[in-house]
């Protein structure tokens, strides 16, 4: 019988100076790397395949299979690039992981590099989290100093270098090929696929791009085995993951649990929805995943079940909105985000998100017309499946799902001349308006 919560990645987060090599080692850290270096690389890839670990960055592609797509060694370099550009709205798991336990990622990087034959790995972390970048730089330096990275790190004559690279503020760089272009010093725009990164990735060389949580899960799998991992979760969605609860919930935060847990169970643990309110809508995996409602409280949060219920598990970013929240306002704001972050490369996304933003703005401010809902859905239809990358598809998810679930609320904005909701009611603090004027201090 598995416990409701299964802290593995988060298990050291409450230790004193949890981010240091000393603390990590005191809890068994780098034991998995030592074990891995005694194994054949192919055996490690097989273990990760057998574990059923699927990409934790949203898409859920089997991690071991991704590694297996690399072409045979041709003597040239091959790269591991960790996607630490966490920026999908609602997603907040990799940043705390790297803040609290950067060595779990570095150890995963070392093991993965050994398994795929990489001697120079990169961690691409978003630039807007300077302390996380400090912790990563520091952890890499500690690992070099301890001989875990650098000369002969992966065996006699096999070096491993790790470069931690800070981005500069662009959501699109979370898309793996845009990330590679950005890492090459270009605008972060997605590439045509195929060729996939496994064949022609960083500097057109074979490259594996994996999410932080995926790579950080590798040491535990190597240490304790594929069977241990599959003893948690469901048959097709094995193992554990970080579930991030945010919004109108009593105790928001990170809950590391086997895949297949439900929102009802998670909410029970988190103290429930804000007292005096009911759950109205939620995202199972970030803003790019179609909205769910209270009807979906018992959907097992695994890849298959969430998909069958009409959404996506995504990054397990569970944003909870109670009955005080206007769905039009929420969706309009997400749409502004997609329009702002659209890289401009393809027409459906660049133009489509621009118009979606305009139409939603006028619905929200009460100047919409009845035809606007059809326009919204039509534009969405012209983006979905026609955009160059998943950003465009993601932009349509909150719109189409919310119109389906809350059409009458949209109509009320149009016929009622504006938003019927009180913004203050949704806020987590008491408003103290009017603000006291005249207290400004000139520095």
């Amino acid at each position, binding site marked *: 019988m598995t416990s409701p919560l299964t802290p593995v990645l988060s298990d050291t987060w409450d230790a004193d100076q949890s981010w240091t090599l000393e603390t990590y080692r005191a809890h068994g850290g780098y034991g998995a790397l030592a074990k891995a270096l005694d194994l054949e690389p192919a055996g490690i890839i097989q273990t990760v395949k057998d574990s059923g670990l699927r990409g934790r960055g949203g898409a859920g592609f089997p991690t071991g299979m991704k590694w297996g797509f690399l072409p045979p060694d041709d003597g040239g370099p091959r790269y591991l690039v960790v996607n630490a550009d966490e920026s999908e709205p609602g997603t907040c798991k990799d940043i705390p992981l790297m803040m609290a336990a950067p060595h779990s990622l570095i150890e995963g990087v070392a093991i993965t590099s050994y398994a795929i034959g990489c001697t120079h790995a990169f961690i691409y972390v*978003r630039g807007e989290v300077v302390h996380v970048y400090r912790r990563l730089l520091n952890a890499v330096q500690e690992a070099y100093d301890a001989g875990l990275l650098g000369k002969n790190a992966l065996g006699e004559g096999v070096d491993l270098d790790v470069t931690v690279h800070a981005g500069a503020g662009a959501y699109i760089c979370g898309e793996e090929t845009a990330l590679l272009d950005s890492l090459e010093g*270009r605008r972060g725009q997605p590439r045509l696929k195929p060729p996939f990164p496994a064949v022609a990735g960083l500097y057109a060389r074979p490259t594996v791009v994996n999410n932080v949580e995926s790579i950080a899960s590798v040491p535990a799998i190597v240490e304790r085995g594929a069977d241990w991992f599959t003893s948690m979760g469901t048959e097709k969605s094995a193992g554990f993951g970080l579930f991030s609860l*945010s919004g109108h919930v009593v105790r928001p935060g990170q809950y590391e649990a086997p895949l297949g847990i439900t929102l009802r169970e998670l909410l029970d643990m988190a103290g429930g929805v804000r007292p005096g309110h009911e759950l109205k809508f939620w995202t199972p995996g970030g803003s790019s995943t179609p909205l769910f409602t209270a009807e979906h409280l018992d959907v097992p949060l695994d890849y298959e079940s969430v998909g069958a219920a009409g959404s996506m598990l995504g990054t397990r970013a569970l944003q909870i909105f109670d009955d005080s929240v206007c769905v039009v306002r929420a969706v309009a704001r997400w749409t502004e985000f997609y329009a702002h972050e659209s890289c401009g490369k393809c027409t459906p996304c660049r133009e489509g998100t621009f118009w979606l933003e305009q139409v939603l703005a006028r619905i929200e401010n009460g100047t919409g017309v009845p035809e606007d809902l059809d326009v919204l859905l039509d534009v969405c239809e012209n983006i979905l499946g026609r955009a160059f990358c998943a950003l465009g598809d993601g932009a349509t998810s909150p719109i189409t799902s919310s119109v389906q679930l809350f059409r009458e609320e949209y109509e009320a904005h149009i016929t009622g001349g504006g938003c019927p909701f009180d913004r203050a009611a949704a806020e987590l603090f008491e408003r103290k308006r009017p603000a006291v004027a005249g207290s400004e201090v000139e520095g």
Partner: protein
Amino acid sequence: MTTEAYSRGPACSYDDETYRRLADDAAQIVARYPEPRSALLPMLHLVQAEESYVSRDGIAFCAERLGLTPAQVSAVATFYTQYKRHPNGRYTVGVCTNTLCAVMGGDTIFDELSEHLDVGHDQTTEDGKITLERVECNAACDFAPVVMVNWEFFDNQNPETAKRLADSLRLGEDVTPTRGASTVATFQEVSRVLAGFPDGRADEGVGASGATLAGLRLARENDWRAPEEAAPSDVDAAPGEGDVPPRTGGAQSSAESKESDK
């Protein structure tokens, strides 16, 4: 570090001393990558550390050092929101106004701060202290509403705490992020860190606090573990520490403290 001869073109007007110092830094950045152009993003952070924004000189400098045209560098610099096109304040105060934070109160925080400081989005106070911004989701949704100061986390904010924070920054008082270094470095200092030059402050602050530990606290209270949790067999754990729970609640662990929950 390196003292190799360098050639410089006419487009960048940095004085020789500045140019030479930055060229040495740039050489260190380039050395981190198999291909020089990968150094461009960190180099843009570097020139921003010099002047608080990416100036024409900064663009010319990057272009010269990497053998690119200024147009190529500009195209990259203007793509990313962290690169500033005009001089930045000493502190960037970024209020998250993406949906979740906005709804939880970020919109009101931004509005009140904007009124309090008398500046709008991407504008700088007259004293040059604060550049106010609306920022997108900064991966701290479980701490909403969130305010970032020079890319350090100030969690669980409200309009009053945010205004006090801004006042302190303008008065030159030290402020302490909820999760981050023990004080907030200046925008230019932080930009230099983002160029990959550590400032020695990684060991400041907590590892995790508040919401980050919500699930772990509950698991500890109920003794919930992953299967076969208590079997770290072949690891070189320190004597006596192999199977005891990690020490918590120390100076840099807020595992037992709840000050940031409120």
